[in-house]
């Protein structure tokens, strides 16, 4: 805020000299503030109406039995009690956290490794980087359908065809209650990889080369350089990506829904994330109150996970 005001002051000076009749320095400041706030008011108003109002409305709805048809009736914590007793919720809860706890580290380690080595590649650097980034630009639905066909059993599944050429036994992938979740997770990781690589590479480039030179002169090995210089200096980037990717995995929906449309979240609910359960509760069963309660739980989880990560990865001074 202070920076903005200073900048504003600097650029406002010539204008100020023209409009001296408007008064002294203090009223200039006020005028600037009015300007700033009148511009800021628009997004704030927009957010308040489009974001915050529905959010609070959702909190209220979670205490009602609204089903779209009849007026909402306040039923206290009944939705939450039902939710915590619902075995499906706990299954979905477990699935969601499996996506998060396994997906986030794997995707970050992979992205970092690729970025780390890609950073040193000079040959066709931009082209390779573009290739990695390409999946991020593709629609999730289209990607999910392609992968869905890859995973099919023979005669049409490409992966199983390769397996049979190599003499590896056929795998059921998304038709199996054990493999389906991980099969979908792989596609989600692959889809997000490009973005994470770009951010990591930007982070790597931001580390001054002089640090590395100094370390090499002091005779530090590559591993020590990575551990003592690269990783610590990359921390802000890592924190951002951990939070960003975690939120992504907690909100996973497109991939799951599009890869299992015949039996959404199946087989036997083994791939169903919380967001899909919310969607089904709201738009298949029209239990809006119950769905709102699930949304509030998801919101709370997102909030706790994000705050926890920021706290764990905070700058220690």
């Amino acid at each position, binding site marked *: 805020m202070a920076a903005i005001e200073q900048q504003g002051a600097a650029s406002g000076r010539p204008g100020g000299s023209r409009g001296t009749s408007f008064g002294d320095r203090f009223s200039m400041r006020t005028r600037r503030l009015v300007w700033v706030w009148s511009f800021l008011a628009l997004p704030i108003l927009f957010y308040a109406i489009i974001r915050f109002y529905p959010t609070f409305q959702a909190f209220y709805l979670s205490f009602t039995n609204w089903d779209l048809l*009849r007026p909402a009736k306040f039923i206290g914590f009944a939705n939450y009690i039902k939710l915590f007793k619902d075995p499906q919720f706990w299954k979905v809860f477990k699935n969601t956290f499996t996506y998060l706890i396994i997906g986030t580290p794997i995707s970050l380690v992979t992205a970092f490794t690729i970025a780390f080595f890609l950073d040193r590649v000079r040959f066709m650097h931009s082209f390779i980087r573009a290739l990695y980034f390409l999946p991020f630009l593709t629609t999730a639905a289209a990607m999910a359908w392609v992968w869905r066909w890859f995973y099919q059993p023979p005669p049409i599944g490409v992966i199983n065809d390769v397996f*049979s050429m190599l003499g590896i036994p056929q795998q059921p992938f998304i038709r199996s209650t054990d493999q389906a979740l991980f099969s979908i997770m792989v596609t989600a990781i692959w889809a997000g990889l490009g973005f994470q690589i770009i951010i990591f590479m930007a982070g790597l480039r931001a580390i001054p080369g002089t640090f590395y030179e100094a370390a090499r002169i002091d005779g530090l090995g590559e591993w020590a350089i990575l551990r003592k210089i690269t990783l610590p200096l990359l921390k802000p980037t890592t924190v951002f990506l951990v939070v960003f990717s975690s939120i992504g995995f907690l909100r996973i929906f497109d991939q799951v829904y599009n890869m299992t449309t*015949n*039996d959404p979240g199946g087989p036997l609910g083994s791939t169903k994330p919380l967001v899909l359960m919310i969607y*089904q509760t709201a738009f*298949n069963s029209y239990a809006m109150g119950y769905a709102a309660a699930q949304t509030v739980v998801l919101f709370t989880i997102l909030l706790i996970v994000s705050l926890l990560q920021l706290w764990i990865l905070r700058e220690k001074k």
Partner: protein
Amino acid sequence: MRKATLFAGLVAGFSTFAFNAAQAVEIEYWQYVFDTRVKAMDQLITEFQKANPGITVKQVTFPYADYQTRVIAANMAGNGPDVMQLFYGWLDKFVAGGLLAPLPKDAFPQAKIESEFFPIVKAMKRGDDYYGLPTAVRSLALFYNKKLFTEAGLDPNSPPKTLDEYVAAAQKIAKRDASGNLIVEGSTLDMAGQDHQWWREVLIRQFGGVPYTDNDQKVAYNSEAGIKALKFYTSLQLEKKIGAAGFMDEGQAAFRGGKAGMTIDGTFRLGAFKSIKDFEWGVTELPANAQGVRSNYASYFANGISAKAKGEKLEASKKFLAYITSPAAMDIWLKTVGELPALRSAALTETNLKDPIYAPFLKGLEYAHTTLFMDEQGQRQNAIDMANRVLLQGQSVEDSIKQAAAAEQEIIDAAKP
């Protein structure tokens, strides 16, 4: 809520304005987007307006996935249709929400409905009132690939008539590669498609039971018949190996791709299968059991009159509903959409009964059952899970049936208005 009232007021204002200006009645008809259905309805509206000057009908359509939500949301805003299309399985929800008015008995006498329509129309009756009438109905039949029949040494002109013949033919057609992977299915297995209906309303009855009692409010398949029916179904994959759930992703895709000898599907699939060029296919009645017992599952989209239609609009809506459920309208619908007429007289004509494709579906209508779903998607999902527990997790059929019956009862009870 305040916005809704404002919106309703605005709409009311506009409609009075329109009324004063045109001095004619305009009613709205709502259905979901499906190319041939929209075209057929356009044609029906043109015919109707010719016969009834002074009434204009405006067709409004929404994508299927949004359709229910739109109808319900519009009702809240006081801005719904006058005549609407609805799946028979949504009736309880729509009645409970006060969306539909009972059909006026002067224009639609009950005795006439019951004698002229196929008996499945009863699914639109609650208490003493009917809440809608269908233009067209759908039933199931067995589609078979004549090319694969010939290749397997079977007569392509005598498709299986009984379950035993069905299994035997499927076993002959099914092909595996050297490493044992299925490459051609004898018959598709797809609970997410129509197989759950086949199991529920056909197989259970053929094994001597009933799926539900108490107007389909009480699950009754946790019985010997239910167990036998599910055993038969799952054994098709596990023992007789005529197919595999998930083969080519979907049953209908496998059949379309010429990789399945047979598939059970509905009239609504005719349009998609008509474009098949690689092979000839035929349709036959669903196989009977050894005692000759047959059954079928029929369903339909009905047309109902909105509870908000009053006065002149109600009169116009009555006329329009009467027209779109008349034999003339059904004929147009059959030709454009390919769905079977809901009136016996319009359906069971000599031409239709001689038609090799329509005839098996029409015969099926005579003995078809219509499940009164309380939560169609939930109950379908429950059947998918029941089969998957046996097929994927090796749970015993008895345990899976027991679990499914308890879960479905819960779904039904929870959905009761």
